[in-house]
């Protein structure tokens, strides 16, 4: 493993045509800098873990990538588009291509798993028929069932999501994300509110999607063992800057702990 705070290794930049290029990205909140000029690029078909202490700006970075939070300055090139220059309509179409898995799964609690998954089709359809499974076209229902089957929940399709376990709800959220047919996945601590085994299953599922479909994944996780097992590359954020960038094969838990200790000491 490389030294945790060594200059960034250009592990990702060796691959041509990156799916994500971030240049000079900054974000200030009331004069306080959360992101201070980030520069990095991600190649397609890789799982990249984003680590950092609480408040280091990881979630802000993820939201800035799709302009759920507007960056203060800098550019984001994602899936071949200059995200900052997109009009509201183009931004909506762009977001449809980016699947986001949240720490809180953010499902609609009173609706069934199938209805929630069908909501993912709103990425490309604006018809009221994709508001609820009862009115959805047969092709949409079939695709949603395939997504539920992919996450192992086809037999729970008509169960209300608020009666499912935390792990099952996170799987439904992943199925909804698959229904979007995304080209890029952002995951904000998808394992945070789950027990160790369920969290591991969810992370394994995300990595399997990367391996099987060639999707790109940028995932935030506080669990070092998940970072090491389920990513190809690790980016470490500290004080609003990329302070660590290394190939996961060259990383180990002790090195990552040193990174966190150094960040806390600083």
């Amino acid at each position, binding site marked *: 493993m490389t030294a945790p705070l060594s200059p960034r290794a250009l592990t990702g930049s060796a691959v041509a045509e990156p799916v994500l290029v971030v240049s000079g990205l900054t974000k200030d909140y009331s004069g306080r800098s959360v992101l201070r000029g980030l520069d990095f690029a991600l190649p397609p078909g890789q799982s990249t873990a984003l680590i950092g202490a609480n408040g280091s700006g990881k979630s802000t970075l993820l939201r800035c990538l*799709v302009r759920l939070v507007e960056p203060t300055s800098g550019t984001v090139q994602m899936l071949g588009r200059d995200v900052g220059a997109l009009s509201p309509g183009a931004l909506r179409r762009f977001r*449809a291509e*980016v699947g986001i898995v949240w720490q809180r799964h953010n499902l*609609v609690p*009173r609706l069934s798993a199938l209805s929630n998954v069908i909501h993912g089709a*709103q990425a490309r359809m604006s018809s009221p028929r994709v*508001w609820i499974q009862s009115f959805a076209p047969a092709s949409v229902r079939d695709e949603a069932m395939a997504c539920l089957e992919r996450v192992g929940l086809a037999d729970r399709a008509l169960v209300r999501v608020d009666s499912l376990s935390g792990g099952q709800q996170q799987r439904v959220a992943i199925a909804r994300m698959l229904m979007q047919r995304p080209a890029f996945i952002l995951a904000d601590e998808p394992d945070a509110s789950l027990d160790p085994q369920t969290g591991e299953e969810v992370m394994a599922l995300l990595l399997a999607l990367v391996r099987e479909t060639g999707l790109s994944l940028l995932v935030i996780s506080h669990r070092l063992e998940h970072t090491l097992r389920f990513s190809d590359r690790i980016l470490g954020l500290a004080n609003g800057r990329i302070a660590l960038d290394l190939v996961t094969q060259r990383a180990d838990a002790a090195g990552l702990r040193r990174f966190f200790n150094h960040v806390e000491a600083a």
Partner: protein
Amino acid sequence: MTAVAPSRFQHRSLLEYAALLLALALVLMALVSTAPAPDRLGSGIARLFAPSGLLTQMFPPDFTRIVPISGKLLETFQMAVAGCFLGLILALPFAILATDRLSPHPLVRHSARALIALFRTVPDLVWAIVFIIIVGLGPAAGVMAIMVDKIGFAGRFFAEAMEETDPGPQDALRAIGANRLGIIGSAVIPACLPSFIATSLFALEKSVRGSAALGLVGAGGIGVDLKVAFDLFNYDEALAIILMILALVVAVEQGSGWIRRKLI
């Protein structure tokens, strides 16, 4: 060392005591100016029970005109249902436009809130008089009055319910690329449905109670018959009408309570 218990009462400033005294003075002035004098109240109550008094003449209630009165009671109920239905349907878009997160523009939001407040603040009897001028005497004016009153009532509660919903699912759908209508239809309305149903049932109860009084100003329903019965001193028939209104209101309240328990 043992902890010392804090003072039982908080220290108040002179200004706070002055405000309290002013509030008390306002209440006392209102009571002295408008409340009935005890001697007048006493003699009035005594007159109620005199041989020619109201209560004496009311009993026993006269149900000889039960068939036409039942027809009017049905009309009253129909006015309440139609006005309530139209009001609830129109309250939803008003509420959406009045909600911080869903309104397209602050100007639209403030306008929607102002209209809802106007509809709510003006009493339904006043709306009934306005609509009698517009559409003439009869149940149509009553339906319109109930509709406007319900836009004000349900619009406020619908908007509050939408403000209080978890923003997470809405943000997730926005991140997916769903449009505003999709977010409302997929996330907001399903999440608010229990609250919407409860508000709608309360609105129906309120409409039934209100619709009985609208006839007093000529806006249709059983209120017309009640006014005529009092005007002609047919107090026994008036009591029969009051008892039938009571039965209708209690039946609707029991029914809506049962539906609330079943659905929510």
